[in-house]
């Protein structure tokens, strides 16, 4: 099944605020359309002996849903985020320490996992943790007609045939993590990856702009 390549895909408006919480070492809130997520990072800090690793830092990711206690779905999202972060953080610089990343859902209107990834990256940047590359998350949905939609809303996600989230790195735009749901062909997968790589350029430009704004002397 070929996906129509001439459709207009766009990313919803996004916004970010860093250092908004006083207690965590790094914090950021990331907003994509109506989906908003708050991330807080503590680290490097002391680690429990049972969890320590002798040559690197132990990264722990906690995702708090808005209603109720964390369940299996949050655990699988935590694993996706944790693997991406471990791939980009220079953990060997802080052996026997712990890094804790806490993500709180403020509102879920689709593309939640990519919002988690973006908020996590901004919070890690805000905390000043050394990273080998930045990463961003992009969600693609393939709807019933075969059109690719990036950054879908909750309503669009419900109607879609397949939903994919990719974590893309900043150095070479390669895929660091992928999480997919639904059925799709190899062609569609490759097209979604290519679209996500294009979209990630915009997000990385946004990272650059926000950090530039923060360290500039004038607004």
């Amino acid at each position, binding site marked *: 099944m070929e996906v129509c390549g001439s459709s207009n895909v766009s990313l919803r408006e996004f916004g*970010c605020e860093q250092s908004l919480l006083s207690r965590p070492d790094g914090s950021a*809130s990331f907003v994509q359309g109506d989906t908003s997520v*708050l991330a807080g990072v503590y680290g490097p800090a002391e680690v429990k002996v049972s969890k320590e690793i002798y040559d690197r830092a132990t990264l722990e990711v906690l995702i708090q849903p808005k209603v109720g206690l964390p369940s299996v779905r949050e655990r699988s999202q935590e694993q996706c985020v944790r693997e991406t972060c471990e791939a980009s953080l220079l953990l060997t610089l802080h052996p026997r320490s712990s890094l*804790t990343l806490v993500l709180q859902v403020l509102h879920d209107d689709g593309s939640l996992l990519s919002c988690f990834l973006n908020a996590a990256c901004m919070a890690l940047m805000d905390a000043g943790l050394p990273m080998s590359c930045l990463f961003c998350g992009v969600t693609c949905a393939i709807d019933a007609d075969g059109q690719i939609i990036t950054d879908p809303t909750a309503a669009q996600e419900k109607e879609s045939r397949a939903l994919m989230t990719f974590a893309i790195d900043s150095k070479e735009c390669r895929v660091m993590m992928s999480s997919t749901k639904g059925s799709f062909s190899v062609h569609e997968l*490759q097209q979604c990856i290519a679209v996500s790589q294009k979209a990630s350029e915009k997000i990385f430009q946004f990272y650059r702009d926000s950090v530039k704004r923060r360290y500039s002397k004038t607004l």
Partner: protein
Amino acid sequence: MKITFGTDYGCCFVELGKTRVMAQVSCELVAPKESRPNEGIMFFNIELSPMASPTFEQGRQSELSVKLNRQLERCLRNSKCIDTESLCVVSGEKVWQIRVDVHMLNHDGNLMDAASIAAITALCHFRRPDVGIQGDEVTVYSPEERDPIPLSIYHMPISVSFSFFQQGTYLLVDPCEREERVMDGLLMIAMNKHREICSIQSSGGIMLLKEQVMRCSKIASVKVSEITELISKALENDKKARKAGGRCGFAESMPQERITALKMDETPVEMTEVTDRANDIVQKAEAPSQTVPSPVVPVPGVGQVGQGLQNTWGLEEEDEEEENDNSGEDEEVKETKMEVEQHDKEGSKQEDVVEISDSEEEEVVILHPETPDKAPKHTGPSFHQKGAAASKKKQKK
């Protein structure tokens, strides 16, 4: 103090100095309690998120968390500020259960006050779905069909905390985190704007004189009326904004003028090269499949391993490949190798169907080899879990 609301009804953010708290109210139809068949159920939950303070741990019910939960319950439930009888739908069978989740986002002292303000504001802001009863049938209308109804709230109890130093000589209202750490004792008074005391709690073991308690309650009544003013104003503003049809929520309330905040509008993504690039990649991917000698691929989609013994090396390798693939794909070349080895597995599966049925795997589905895309996704997980054991077992066989 700042109060903002989220996008959906029942979501409220409160900033008390640097302490930040979020409350969310949700509702569900459940069977009522045996002892009270015509009253709804209120459930409060305060989550001390590990984000709020490095000392808060996930999942541990610390003393502080138990104390805050108990205080909030006493303040809101025992004071009967919500009319629970109005939450009844079918007496004895279906009532509304209102659940209030309060998440602590940043702990800079006085979590109790912030939590009580957030909880009562969220309850005032919340709208429950409309319900229609025809005889025995109960229909719950979605927000699009019929406007949701607010809860009936009699009064708004708000708690005010006082901290004492030096055996009651010094008194501080609304202590921040550092002040809390060195205080001698804490007095919490929950009042509503009609000057009715809903709950008093004194902890820390200081002895208070009658005059001190009276003085505190006077200060509390002044504060409570101010806070109630602020809450009603915030609710009014939010109602106006929603009526005007504007977007409301955390996204809108993000401050723009700060140097640490940035917002970008909707941006289109250029798709011009996408189909070409994708086609290139897929074609390049299909080419190398012929250079791998071990599995013979006469036709794409059908794999055949040579006659005789199965290729256990191939199976072991592809278990690793699958594990890698599950956690991250680096390059498309790996993906094709996976596909090719998938064909190999398909072939071997076709031959030794009998052997596999003896293995300890729960379900073995022999997939049609013409669907190489579905194959990795399906057999992946079962192999991922028992990869090591299965491959060892196959080697023995």
